């Protein structure tokens, strides 16, 4: 049975909305397509879907709706094509080709796994498809190659390790011994390498007493925690995320590891409501962590309001960093397109958009982002670190002792490889 009043009401709503949108939309420039199709890739299944993929997709969807309600990009409506990032590299690359050649998208944004961020750029260059990497960590992308069609609108993972080292030293300047427990895969290795090299450069008498490498998604860390309790390092560094981070945090808290040493996590790869108070944590940029500057950012406020309306939020306003990163990608694309349209006077080619993207600066819910390194293809971000603290007023965990390390403090200068930069003692770093 069809209920007519409902149908009529929704028809009115739809037309009303279209009318509003049309009114807001500027007339498209010459050569503009009917719609701007963008491939949006994120983990929709598997262990990375909960902490990263799904929030990122949700954020991208509501931000695209917002952009469209403001008239789209250059007067053209943005249409996302969502796909799942899960699967081996051959599947991910096949999927990219499908987006480019079959769906004929104008740009692709996304990718959370570092392996995929390394596999996709050569294909993007081959097919001449503008591609914005959105949440992966590896610093190898632009340090080992040039990719004219590829941009990354968030900082690579070096900021997380350097930030962790600087924050640990600011909280506990007397650190003597450190240990690492990281998942046995590339990002775990990279994270540990950056952190231990940085802290030993900043304070040369720091000693590494242990480096543990449990299997990723092992879930059981009793043995590792026992060993950390035996060794009693001053600081334990971890790059765990998702279920592994929650499990480790729970087991470490229950067994008093947090009372014996300082545990520092280089990413908010799990909702902080599930993590043990007392741990130091970095947010892979200025996301989630609320600083006075950030509170004044209107885009951020808008994003949090939209997200709360659509998906609900805890009292601490926590949203996964992946979600902020995906918005950075969208804002970057939008700004680059608008700049290119203005410069070309008509709808731009991918090459013109890429030229506009290079060394671009744009506003996002994470503050102003600059494509400052990697020959203008790689963004820098400040590193935000804090202590997790239970807030009885809000009834949920929140951040305390927040510190922001400016982008110039935690990122290498343009053209310098990250590990070289650390080993040479951070030349050019400007820290408060």
């Amino acid at each position, binding site marked *: 049975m069809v209920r007519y009043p409902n149908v009529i009401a929704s028809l009115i709503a739809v037309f009303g909305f279209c009318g509003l949108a049309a009114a807001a939309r500027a007339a498209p420039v010459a050569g503009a397509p009917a719609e701007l199709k963008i491939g949006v890739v994120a983990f929709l*299944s*598997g*262990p990375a*879907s*909960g*902490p990263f*993929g*799904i929030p990122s997709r949700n954020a991208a969807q509501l931000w695209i709706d917002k952009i469209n309600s403001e008239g789209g990009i250059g007067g053209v409506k943005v249409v996302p094509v969502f796909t799942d990032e899960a699967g081996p590299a051959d599947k991910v690359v096949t999927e990219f080709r499908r987006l480019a050649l079959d769906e004929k998208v104008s740009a692709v944004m996304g990718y959370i796994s570092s392996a995929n961020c390394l596999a996709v750029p050569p294909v993007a260059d081959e097919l001449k498809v503008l591609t914005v990497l959105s949440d992966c960590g590896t610093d190898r992308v632009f340090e080992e190659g040039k990719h004219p069609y590829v941009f990354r609108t968030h900082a690579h993972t070096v900021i997380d390790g350097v930030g962790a080292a600087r924050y640990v030293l600011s909280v506990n300047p007397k650190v003597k011994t450190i240990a690492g427990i990281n998942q*046995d895969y590339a990002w775990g290795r990279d994270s540990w390498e950056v952190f231990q090299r940085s802290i030993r450069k900043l304070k040369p008498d720091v000693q590494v007493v*242990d*480096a*543990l*490498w*449990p*299997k990723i*998604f*092992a*879930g*059981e860390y*009793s*043995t*590792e925690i*026992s*060993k950390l*309790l*035996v060794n009693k390092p001053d600081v334990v560094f971890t790059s765990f995320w*998702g*279920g*592994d981070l*929650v*499990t480790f945090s*729970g*087991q470490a*808290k*229950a*067994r*008093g*590891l947090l009372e014996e040493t300082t545990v520092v996590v280089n990413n908010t790869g*799990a*909702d902080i409501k*599930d993590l043990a108070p007392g741990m130091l944590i970095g947010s892979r940029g200025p996301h989630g962590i609320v600083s006075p500057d950030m509170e004044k950012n209107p885009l951020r406020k808008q994003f949090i309001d939209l997200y709360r309306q659509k998906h609900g939020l805890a009292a601490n306003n926590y949203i996964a960093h992946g979600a902020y990163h995906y918005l950075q990608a969208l804002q970057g694309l939008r700004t680059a397109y608008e700049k290119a349209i203005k410069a070309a006077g008509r709808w731009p080619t991918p090459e013109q958009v890429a030229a506009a993207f290079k060394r671009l600066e744009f506003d996002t819910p994470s503050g102003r982002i600059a494509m400052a390194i990697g020959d203008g293809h790689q963004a820098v971000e400040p590193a935000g670190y804090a202590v997790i603290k239970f807030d009885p007023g809000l009834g949920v965990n929140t951040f305390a002792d927040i510190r922001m390390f400016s982008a110039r403090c935690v990122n290498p200068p343009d053209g310098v490889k990250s590990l070289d930069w650390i080993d040479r003692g951070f030349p050019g770093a400007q820290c408060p």
Partner: protein
Amino acid sequence: MRLLTVIALDGLAYASWLFLVSAGLTFTYGVLRVLNLAHGNLYALGAYLGATLVLRYAAGGSTVALGYGLLLLGAVVIGIVAGPLIERLFLRRVYDKDEEVQLLLTFSISLILEDVVKLTWGVSPIFADAPYTALGRVSLGGINYAWYPFLLTAIALAVGALLWLVVTRTRLGKVLQAVITDREVSLTLGINVPRVYTWAFTVGAVLAALGGAYTAPMFSLVPGVGAEVLVTSFAVIAIGGLGSIGGAALGALIVGMARSAAVYLFPELDLFAIYFMMALVLLFRPQGLFGEIEMRRI
């Protein structure tokens, strides 16, 4: 010396967990001669249901004690619902088929259940650690241990003892042994073999779910936990000998100690410990430590 004690303690705790999660797999194989690739998913279902019950009814305060019973309840519910369903609807039709067909059947059930879990509970990590934290901790030699893993040791011992008693000391056990030894002869003796199979598979399913349920307070649950556990328990029971409860216990001890030693002495080898032990044992004793050599038919 102290190091050895710590390694042994951690190894024991890990071994208990390993035994608990692999007992069901080896029991099912022992009776039905089918390696149940959906074992990990039954584990996951037990874990998710147990965690949900705990979060809803025993999240804190005075109700915590209820949690341990709820975990058991969750496991039993999953086992007695999923067990007969899978056995009667699917497995029953392939007993006379080739072994690879049976494996593939359970593989396809595993794929389906993987998404059933995802559709029911979503993808966000679920962590019901109240039963874990409520037990508190104990200091042994200056190192804090949580009590909970030792509760698992007790449960593992209880499960092992119960299975052993039932199989060796009861009439039911005699029937089981008869069916295991010779199916056709058992049929002619008037044993209702199909019913024994249904029961055995259900027991295996309950055990799988039990392993999951009592793991839930220790681990955060995410999509894919089942697959991880399946491969681990494979290794454990292959070392001990497929179908042997005692073998699973020994396999669990070997793997538990090996991993614990690896973490302390060669942390770089953590990843390999389990597969390395498996390959090593199988090379020298293809049928596993307690496995029986099967007759080759002519």
